[in-house]
């Protein structure tokens, strides 16, 4: 790899440090990870903010991700265009949220977003159904799915509006202190 100083300017690095929970070193490491995804697309020189995105097709076709039910959703949530095409900023954002330094509320917020398939800021029944089907690979009968969703909603829906708001979700997570502690990735 080239000299580290040539990738970013000092201002860029500072900005990244301000915007994420990462140190300079981690940012550089993540950049290389990012570049590894598509070496032909990503230049080694980021000083003039090149407009580079890694298309979702590339991410989604990774063999490791093929089986993952949430691959598209993750990419969508964390990408700016909501279609899964990721820029370096998106990439850093994603890891920033999942880093240990990120506060619990932020994590909860993003987890919520991932669940919220139809982007209406509520986890409604259809979202839950989707999650469940993804998790079980369509193995459940519709009644079962229905029942599980009802139970889940029942359990955490505090204001009885039939859908989970972010507050409901956060409250549920606070009730289980160790819950989100697993939701992290160490870089």
């Amino acid at each position, binding site marked *: 790899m080239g000299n580290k100083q040539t990738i970013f300017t000092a201002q860029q690095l500072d900005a990244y440090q301000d915007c994420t929970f990462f140190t300079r070193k981690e940012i550089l490491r*993540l950049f290389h*990870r*990012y570049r*590894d*995804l598509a070496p032909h697309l990503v230049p080694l020189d980021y000083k003039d903010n090149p407009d580079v995105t890694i298309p979702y097709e590339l*991410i989604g076709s*990774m*063999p*490791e*991700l*093929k*089986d*993952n*039910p*949430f*691959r598209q959703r*993750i990419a969508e949530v964390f990408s700016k265009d909501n279609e899964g095409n990721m820029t370096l900023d998106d990439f850093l954002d*994603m*890891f920033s949220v*999942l880093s*240990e330094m990120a506060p619990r509320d932020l994590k909860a917020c993003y*987890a919520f977003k*991932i*669940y919220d398939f139809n982007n209406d800021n509520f986890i409604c029944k259809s979202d839950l159904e989707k*999650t*469940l089907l993804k*998790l*079980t*690979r369509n*193995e*459940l*009968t519709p*009644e*079962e799915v229905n*029942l*599980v969703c009802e*139970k*889940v909603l029942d*359990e*955490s829906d505090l204001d009885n509006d039939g859908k989970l708001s972010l507050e409901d979700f956060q409250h*549920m997570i606070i*009730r*289980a*202190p160790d*819950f989100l*502690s*697993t*939701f*992290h*990735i*160490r*870089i």
Partner: protein
Amino acid sequence: MPSLLLLLLLLLLRAVQASLASNGTSVGTELLPGAGLSPLHRPELQSSRSPAEMQTPEGHHGRDTVGFEIVNWQWVHVQGPYLIAVWILVASLAKILFHLSSKVTTVVPESCLLIFLGLGLGGIVLAAAKKPEYQLDPDTFFLFLLPPIVLDSGYFMPSRLFFDNFGAILMYAAIGTLWNSFTTGIALWGIKLAGLMDPKVEADLLDFLLFGSLISAVDPVAVIAVFEEVHVNETLFIIVFGESLLNDAVTVVLYKVFNSFAAIGSENIQALDYVKGVGSIFVVSLGGTAVGIVFAFVLALISRFTKRVRIIEPLFVFLIVYLAHLTAEMVSLSSILAVTFCGLCCKKYVEANISQKSRTTVKYTMKTLASSSETIIFMLLGISAVDTSKWTWDTGLVLFTLLFIFVFRAIGVILQSWILNHFRLVPLDRIDQVVMTYGGLRGAVAFALVILLNDQTVKAKDYFVATTITVIFFTVIIQGLTIKPLVKWLKVKRSDHHKPTLNEELHERAFDHILAAVEDIVGHHGYHYWRDKWEHFDKKYLSQLLMRKSAYRIKDDIWDLYQKLNVRDAISFADQGGHMSSGKFTFASMPSRTSFSETSVTNLLRESGSAVCLDLQVIDTVRSGRDREDTVMHHVLRENLYKPRRRYQGNYSRHFITQGEQERQEREVFQRNMRSRLESFKSTKHNVYSSKNKCRHKKEHKCQKRRNVEGINGQVPNDKLRRNVSWHDTVPVFVEVDSEDEEKDKFTKMKEQEDDEGITFMARTVNENLQERKISGNVEYPQSPSIFPPSPTSAEKELPWKGNQGELTACVSSETNKIVPIDLQYAWKQSMDSLVSPTVSDAVPKTSNFMLAERTTSAVLLVPRHPIHFQFPEACTAAEKSTDEDTMESIQQQELQPLMSAEGDSRQVPAAGLVSTRWPAPFHRPSYVSALRSLVASTQCNMKQSEKSGNVQTNL
């Protein structure tokens, strides 16, 4: 209350003295002043008088006994073990007394009470024998008292938690202990130089460092004793506890190093010695660990082959762990580490290999030993403190020691936590640190070490002994007393055990997937990379090597769950009926999705207002419908949620596709279902039979498994009879496993029917049906084998895998079956069938048959009627030993049943036809009679169990 005990002991001592005197033996006078001497101190007495000498009148003592003595007084002969036994008894009785008043024990930790008791007893012994006795002997302590406690804590250590916090534990144990001992030693030396201490304390820097090393280590015994009662959260507990266990290596090394340095003299120490000292820390700790792991390996390997000698399985566990301890002691490695790691590592394999009973035995024996050791240690500590001859008090030394160990521990904890918090996911906050500081209790290890000091080389030994005892008492008593209020006051997170909510279960799984995805995007080795690696290795090689084939195969978390449910159900079952050993056995539901429609049925029924009995526990523990549904949902989720792809796969080969990966994923749920289905079949066998029978069944077990597989493939072995099994999913399934053979079932059944009073009864019960249904949703009645040529029973019709029939299967509760008499169940079933599904046609002929049988009532046996499936509880196990083989086969049949039924009903008639030819009736005559006899007895209690049955009886 303790005074009573003391009095007792005093009396005992007096009695011994008096009896010895009256016995007039030559040793009597010699023994008199020290009647209560520790056996360890007078081996020469025992060896000088062999039993033979005692008994022959012509012994060299010249006693002129005339003729044969009927009774000999042989106190000396039994003295040693007798006194030990009495001491243990006293300690245990004291424990009972303490717990008589719950108020006392909630406030005062047991260890404090025991120390006080020891103080009292020591005073009495001192007064009685004019000589301090029964002190905590370092050899006894390290060889006998310590190993059980350490083994117990190692074996039952939550290993996951331990290794999760391993870094922190290691740091506190190693660096923390080093820091504590050096700072304490140096600071005390500074105080000495400053002249704040009695000048008579002759000690130089090395002596103080030596003292610091022994006083600074947190003691496992004290920590367990106190923290067990405090219930702080697991992380905090494991850190303090793990530290206390692992710091042994450091303490022992430091102690030895300084001890030998003190012996050499500070001026003779060379630079090389320091290097050696540092090196020995690693040798001792790693060596101890290695010894433990090697012995754990041996133990696991041995336990793999104890199939035929189940009875000595527990022995192996204790023996080998003890050998590990002794080996480590022998080569002067850290024995505590050896035992800890031996227990920690062997557990998984041993638990899988040994039988359930052995497991219980191991558990109880271990707890008993550990608990009594602990009791004795604290009591002896108390007694030892009475001995003032070893004491030399110096207020300055004591006060400064107390101050320093506390202050430096606090500083150490804060510094280390600060460092650790940079790496820890869940940081240790202030409160945790306070508790950790405060939880640094010193105990018997320090005392044993200080007693072992050589007073030639360490001039100030007496001062150190006094200080150590004071420190131990201060920490155990004062801190032990106050830690509970402190924890409460600081609102330390307590440990709580709650079941995960549905949300958690769902979201955690989702998170796992999400994380796996994100990690994959970067090609990042997961956080649990090494653990996964290890698990992979363990699964692939270690488990294969160390576990029995059978144990290994059933190693599955689903299986664990079933095992748990199994046991729980069985226990509740036994609690209610007291018929644990009866022919019936309940076991947890089988994960088959196809029949899950029943959940919706129950939901439906629930919504329609009637409470449906879904769960086995419903009747004794009144659970709300909501809870029950949750359980069901948990089941569904557990069975069907995908596990994220194992992260270690493909991590290093980012751009390669492992072949077959995709396929594996797709088959995962299917395989899991099938596997657990098979396991559940096996589980009936595992649990129904005593371990004695197990080995005999092994062979059949194997072929049965093969048949199971065949059954899946659709080839049903048709030369076997079928049994009726009520088979359900997602609710605990109730399967009737009659532990006697078919033949007897028939007979008893016939008798039952003969005894029936008849039709009036039936008419009554129909009325009761209506009420009954409100309570429980029993649709199906567990049928005992009937003498009629079996038509497809309703149970089979409702078998889950006949999903295409689409009928609504409802659930069965064993409780319901219990309280509803047999004929009730018939009628009930009829009515429910008509409610639930239109396919009732088969129930009708059956009932009419039944009626016919009733008409042939004979008054030969006046056995009261009662629920039929409850009739051979203990009787059969006692009486039917001879027919065990047959039983075995029938059980197998039951296990095969669900699979066979997938085939269709057509085979049932020929299969049942075989039965009668196979087991001719007269063969079982005698056992049958005895079964009936016990039936009379058992009926009484059965009847009392429910009001329904009570009604029936009065009607009779």
